[in-house]
């Protein structure tokens, strides 16, 4: 058990170091998100638009500026976290395979990826919610933060899934953008006004996070089912990518008897060479 925690701790620490070195994502988080929230709030007309809220089972008038901010934030967070997880998973795939081959527990590597995904999604969710507080007061800020985080989580899962089938970062980015345009673009108030097409919309990945996020604009219900829907999408897409990793890193070796203790050959050989090096100097 101690070894398991050591493996998980090390893998998580390095997964977070890897994410922290993604300077483009950090720059977008620090500079781009506040800028786009400002622009969205200034550009949108200060009016009320009807939006179908599933938790209230009816169309509710929502402030257009808040709606614009939430829509844009969901899309940006999705792209940032989706691409972060794609690059982290794709770039480390051969290295992870070598680690697994060397005896690193695959479950620890997988859980470390999931932990870094959850932390990245939570970070963008917290930052975006904090910035939105400057413009309007959501009825349920924690719910807004959770919704935005889950939206990012869904696309982080899609990023992991794409890393299992794609190697090109350009292709992955293009697919993430196209998916988010269809997904979040279709949930605009025109299509979602009376909830007529909601059965079709409800199969989209960001439908749950969008519904629960908009609920925070003046509503008091906690839309558990929509939060759960977002979680299911995140779990499903992550599981697809992780399953591919597990399948690809399984050992094909047969008839193998790994001896847990080997000779001290390397130690002695290195000591001999180290001594000879010292003597030569």
């Amino acid at each position, binding site marked *: 058990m101690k*070894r398991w925690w*050591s*493996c998980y701790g*090390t*893998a998580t620490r*390095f997964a977070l*170091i*890897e994410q922290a*070195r993604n300077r483009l994502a950090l720059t977008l988080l620090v500079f781009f998100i506040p800028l786009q929230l400002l622009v969205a709030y200034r550009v949108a007309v200060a009016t009320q638009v009807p939006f179908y809220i599933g938790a209230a089972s009816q169309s509710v008038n929502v402030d257009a500026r808040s709606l614009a901010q939430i829509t844009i934030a969901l899309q940006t967070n999705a792209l940032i976290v989706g691409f972060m997880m794609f690059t982290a998973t794709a*770039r*480390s795939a*051969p*290295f992870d*395979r*070598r*680690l697994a*081959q*060397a*005896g*690193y527990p695959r479950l620890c590597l997988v859980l470390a990826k999931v932990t870094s995904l959850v932390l990245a999604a939570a970070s963008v969710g917290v930052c975006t919610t904090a910035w939105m507080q400057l413009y309007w007061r959501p009825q349920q800020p924690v719910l807004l933060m959770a919704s935005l985080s889950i939206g990012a989580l869904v696309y982080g899962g899609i990023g992991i899934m794409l890393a299992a089938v794609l190697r090109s970062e350009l292709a992955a980015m293009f697919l993430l953008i196209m998916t988010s345009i269809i997904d979040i673009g279709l949930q605009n108030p025109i299509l979602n006004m009376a909830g007529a097409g909601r059965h079709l919309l409800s199969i989209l990945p960001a439908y749950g996070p969008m519904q629960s996020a908009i609920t925070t604009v003046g509503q008091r219900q906690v839309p558990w089912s929509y939060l759960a829907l977002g979680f299911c999408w995140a779990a499903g897409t992550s599981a697809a990518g992780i399953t591919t990793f597990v399948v690809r890193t399984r*050992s*094909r*070796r*047969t*008839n*193998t*008897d*790994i*001896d*847990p*203790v*080997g*000779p*001290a*050959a*390397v*130690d*002695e*050989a*290195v*000591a*001999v*060479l*180290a001594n*000879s*090096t010292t003597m030569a100097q």
Partner: protein
Amino acid sequence: MTQNGAVLCMRGVHKRYRRRQVLRGVTLDLSPGQLVGIVGENGAGKSTLLRILVGDLALDTGAVECHGVLGYCPQETVLHDAFTVEQHLRFFQVAYGVDSLHRAYELLEVLGCAEYRQARLGTLSGGTRQKLNLALALMHDPRVLLLDEPYQGFDWETYLRFWELAASLRNQGCAILVVSHLAYDTARLDTLYRLDSGTLTEAEDVAGDAANSGVKQ
């Protein structure tokens, strides 16, 4: 250990990539304290053979038996650009379950790259990356060592140090298999095999084989 004393045993291994038959009944035994080389042209199937031995690739027919702690140095430097040399060593320390990095540090010293311990991989030269690639394969005291083009990118001094290290390990009872497309320094090997048309044949005269290959010794 197998009945004939070998720690690594291959019997009649066949491997095919779609229509291309790469290995045709390869049989090989590797005993403790033996330093064996396999040479062959580019695309002859040497890396495929090693990947089957480490369990990275499934064989079509045949059998592979491996007894003891395995060390594997892949042909491509499988490292992570985001991490430092030290972080790589920490990662593999946990993977192998070794208590300290004492041996790893000594290996870096011997291979001449100890001063890069805090450097990120993205900033290192190809040769230095290869040194770390090799150190990661050796740092856990393996009993069976499989090396795929282990000295590519090495300077002459490091190349010589590599062979000294390999000889020392062999003398300590480690079974070593070195795969290369060039038959340099074949006199340092106990046995040399040639992989040609998917078949492994022993080169009877090691020195003569190198001469016939048109390469210097």
